């Protein structure tokens, strides 16, 4: 291939990867954890028993809502299943005269959780796995619109970095199985190539479909040009039956379980979400939609039933080609459809992607260290990248580990507890960042990686003693999801400790020697970013 072309691609690869590499790392870490969103929702609420009888829980939800909010404008019920943390409910009360109808205000007081026994239950306040899911594209402490632009631009850079990387690392397919260990820069490069090329189908898919999830924000012109009315597009994309008018004649609701059973036969899969509109009224209506865990497209079909008779009154239109394509791409990105095996593959690919970004960022310094005019006094850009690498690549995982501990240790009665779990993440991360700028990188890496390792590795043992869902209990009761989360944390804890030990033992070669070894190589000129 044309040498000039490849060099230009190498430049593109280096800088598109570096500039927003740290943002990409955060997005990759949280996105990877978010593949276990339901699992983390359950793990962070260890009081909750796993659901064995979803229909019994749904009955309990209906019972609770009928007595708590008998004439609400709407009830929303997340259909419980074996992997959900209870059944989340919230309701919108009738708007008071003179008040605008959209009752999102006070939503906090209008929600409840139904446990596995069908009774309302209270658990520790936590964002659970939702935090990781949201952070993946909304970041935190900033307006979501900014965050999505930042993440969107980072994703575009990622796509550029992947495509230019394929050109730059021209031997990735030829050297598919090559890993030269303990060879300094070569090893980093082989590791970077390995995690990149082994997961390449995933990396391309996840980056491209990630951009698709943000397409209306990043490229709004098609929507602007074709839809003068701002509400028309959502109505087409997310078809929903028209609002019903309250008659004022009270009438009881048929059992929701009967409607759900009927809907599951008609939809051909489990139900994920239920809305009851104008509860307790003769005009009441029940809208159910299929669970995205049961199909590829994220645009799930829905049905509407008359609440008093249980008769089917509305069916969502068959989606068109474009909607199905977008839905399938977003579905492929979020992986909600995945069963346990495919979910593990998603997770491992996410880990590979995270390592790809991390090794790429480290490589930037590894490659430049050899060429520094004076290794003891590197230039400012080098110092900045090196320190930022420690602060983000080591610091953010420390924050996540600290957050897991906060979830376990913060007092249940604490005010703003759910927010404080997240503050703890950022406080620990900030501490790590300060450390990485005041200590030498060699020390800071070891201290932060080591602390993360210790925190993660002892957490499963704390869970055995301090919660009813430790590994042993979980395995005995067949609660594989909880056992899996704990075992995964243990494995990651050990991996972080191993990484810390490797960094601690690492002695950089003296410069003279490395220069000579370099000259002895048969072909001393390495490609710029090969």
């Amino acid at each position, binding site marked *: 291939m044309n040498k000039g072309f490849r060099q230009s691609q190498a430049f593109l690869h280096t800088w598109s990867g570096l500039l927003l590499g740290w943002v990409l790392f955060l997005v990759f870490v949280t996105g990877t954890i978010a593949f276990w969103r339901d699992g983390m929702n359950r793990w962070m609420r260890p009081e909750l028993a796993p659901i064995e009888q979803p229909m019994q829980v749904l009955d309990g939800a209906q019972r609770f809502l009928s007595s708590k909010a008998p004439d609400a404008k709407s009830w929303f019920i997340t259909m419980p299943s074996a992997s959900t943390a209870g059944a989340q409910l919230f309701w919108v009360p009738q708007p008071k005269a003179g008040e605008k109808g959209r009752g999102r205000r006070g939503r906090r007081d209008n929600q409840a959780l139904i446990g596995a026994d069908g009774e309302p239950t209270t658990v520790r306040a936590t964002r659970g796995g939702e935090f990781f899911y949201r952070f993946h594209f909304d970041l935190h402490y900033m307006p979501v619109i900014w965050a999505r632009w930042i993440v969107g631009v980072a994703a575009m850079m990622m796509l550029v970095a992947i495509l230019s990387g394929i050109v730059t690392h021209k031997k990735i397919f030829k050297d598919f199985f090559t890993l030269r260990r303990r060879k300094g820069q070569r090893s980093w490069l082989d590791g970077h190539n390995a995690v990149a090329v*082994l997961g390449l189908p995933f990396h391309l898919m996840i980056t491209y479909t990630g951009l698709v999830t943000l397409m209306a924000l990043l490229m709004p012109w098609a929507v602007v040009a074709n839809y003068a009315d701002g509400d028309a597009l959502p109505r087409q994309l997310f078809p929903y039956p028209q609002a019903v008018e309250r008659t004022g004649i009270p009438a009881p609701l048929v059992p929701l379980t009967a409607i759900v059973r009927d809907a599951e036969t008609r939809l051909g899969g489990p139900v994920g979400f239920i809305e009851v509109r104008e509860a307790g009224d003769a005009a009441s209506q029940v809208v159910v939609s299929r669970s995205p865990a049961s199909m590829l497209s994220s645009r799930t079909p829905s049905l509407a039933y008359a609440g008093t008779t249980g008769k089917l009154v509305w069916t969502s239109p068959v989606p068109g080609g474009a909607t199905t394509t977008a839905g399938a791409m977003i579905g492929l990105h979020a992986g909600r459809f995945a069963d346990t095996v495919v979910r593990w593959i998603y997770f491992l690919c996410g880990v*590979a992607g995270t390592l790809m970004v991390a090794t790429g960022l480290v490589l930037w310094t590894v490659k430049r260290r050899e060429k520094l005019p004076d290794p003891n006094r590197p230039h400012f850009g080098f110092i900045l990248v090196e320190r930022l690498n420690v602060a983000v690549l080591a610091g953010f995982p420390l924050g996540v580990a600290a957050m897991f501990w906060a979830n376990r240790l913060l007092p249940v009665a604490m005010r703003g507890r759910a927010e404080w779990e997240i503050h703890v993440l950022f406080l620990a991360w900030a501490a790590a960042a300060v450390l990485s700028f005041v200590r030498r990188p060699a020390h800071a890496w070891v201290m932060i990686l080591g602390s993360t390792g210790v925190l993660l590795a002892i957490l499963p043992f704390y869970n055995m003693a301090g919660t009813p869902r430790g590994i042993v209990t979980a395995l005995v009761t067949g609660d594989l999801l909880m056992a899996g989360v704990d075992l995964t944390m243990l494995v990651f804890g050990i991996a972080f400790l191993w990484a810390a030990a490797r960094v601690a033992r690492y002695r950089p070669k003296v410069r003279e020697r490395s220069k000579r070894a370099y000259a002895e190589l048969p072909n001393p000129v390495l490609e710029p970013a090969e």
Partner: protein
Amino acid sequence: MSALALLLITAAFALFGLATDPHHRVRFGRIPRAARKRQLRLGAWAALAFAFPLSVGARGWIMGSILWSGYVMLGAGLVFLALNFLPVSGTTYFAKRD
């Protein structure tokens, strides 16, 4: 059926890996001849291809194709780790490595 697909795909990547000079030399003590490389690669492609109808048969067109792609990455990853980290038994490893 889907387990068989994963097995086939892993075997396919093992063949691909062993068709490369360094790994063939480490595991068998010599560099493979061109004809042998071709055989190994042909067998690998056949196993990869045959795993596809198995995956589709197990999970249907949509989920089957996704599963197959996932298995391709998983199988490649397993073989990558095995070839690079599994110790080589016997003396060929030390005698012929360099």
